[in-house]
């Protein structure tokens, strides 16, 4: 059989795919064995085809199937019963669930300890409905009484502050010099309005008021926070005027 380079190139795929007759295959091989160009071409294409046949399919993008389904038939609507929430695997180890559970537990603990409940002191008798009701009733009344007392204390503090703040009487030791008033260092008019009560005068008035209320027994009723607020007012006024 007369076989040349053109035949080899035209029938190369038939040779690779095994579609040549035995006679054609023999002529093909005989020509390729004696022709450098054809031999290289046959080797290169055979190697390429073998490589392509051995190649695995590329993995599809993870969300491709869902994306196609959403674009065609729409998202699947499954019937979800309420029990499936508990039976869904991994539901209990989701970070948002764990964080939520921890937050709820912390909130419950804070409320329980605020109400004076101590788990270590829990007895079986405490679990009876009557005792629980009495305990809750007592806690509710105590809480109400504390709230009333707190509001009353606040009223006293506001009373004291309202009597101290409106005083505009100048104090002799903190009276600025007339030259200083006529020549302010800064041209900002807001600075004048920001000057607070004079420290010497405020402290004197504060101590006088304090003595009055100590005598009347009001201080005993003030809790720590209201006392702090009471003393904080003249001190902050002193700091502002010092600046």
């Amino acid at each position: 059989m007369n076989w040349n380079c053109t035949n080899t190139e035209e029938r190369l795929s038939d040779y690779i795919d095994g579609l040549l007759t035995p006679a054609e295959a023999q002529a093909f091989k005989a020509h390729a064995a004696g022709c450098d160009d054809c031999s290289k071409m046959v080797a290169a294409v055979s190697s390429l085809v073998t490589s392509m046949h051995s190649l695995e399919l590329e993995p599809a993008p993870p969300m491709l199937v869902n994306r196609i389904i959403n674009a065609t038939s729409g998202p699947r609507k499954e019937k979800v019963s309420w029990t499936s929430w508990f039976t869904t695997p991994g539901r209990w180890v989701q970070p948002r669930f764990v964080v939520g559970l921890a937050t709820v537990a912390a909130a419950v603990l804070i409320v329980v300890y605020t109400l004076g409940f101590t788990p270590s002191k829990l007895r079986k008798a405490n679990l009876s409905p009557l005792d629980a009701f009495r305990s809750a009733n007592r806690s509710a009344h105590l809480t109400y009484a504390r709230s009333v007392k707190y509001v009353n204390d606040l009223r006293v503090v506001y009373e004291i502050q309202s009597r101290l703040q409106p005083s505009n009487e100048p104090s002799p030791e903190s009276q600025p010099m007339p030259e200083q008033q006529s020549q302010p260092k800064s041209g900002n008019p807001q600075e004048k309005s920001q000057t607070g009560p004079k420290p010497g005068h405020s402290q004197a008035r504060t101590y006088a008021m304090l003595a009055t209320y100590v005598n009347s027994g009001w201080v005993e009723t003030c809790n720590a926070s209201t006392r702090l607020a009471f003393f904080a007012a003249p001190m902050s006024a002193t700091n502002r005027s010092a600046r």
Partner: protein
Amino acid sequence: MEPDAQLVHDCLQGEGSAWEELVRRHARRVFNICYRFTGNRTEAEDMSQEVFLRIYKTLPSYRPSFGAFPTWLTSVTRNLLVDHYRRTKRDRVTDSMEDVMPQIENKESTARTPDKLALESELSAQLQQGLSKLSPELREAVILRDLQGLEYGEIQTVLQVPEGTVKSRINRGRIELAKILDAMGLRPN
């Protein structure tokens, strides 16, 4: 009745799960055809979605006499790819071998991004580079025959060309692809 035909029948009866099964079964293959043809994963993903959208709309018109469902699916995929290729032809540099050869060095350096190398095996990446240099007619013939494993008769149905043309395109495609890879210094073993 073959499994795909049964699923198609169930789809036409309104069973959503049958359509999902069809998508799951063929999405990877369709994506691979699109990816090998376009050379771009994002573009291939969009094209795959478009293919299944077309299939979903035209499923009632499918008859088993048209051929097996995978062959029909491949035909739809191929037709959409050709349409897409024609639509975007103006935006691309010509794919003819003569024009591409002088630019191979530059294109190779830009195409071999770390992301791509991480996603693909070296052989797959090399073949993809070579395929992108082939003309669309030869590229689709090689993809269907050597990467999708279709028989000549199936390719003839998909491409709607005579068997002699199919064989000729496959043969020329293989030889040109080997030459391109050789010119790029890539020799898949």
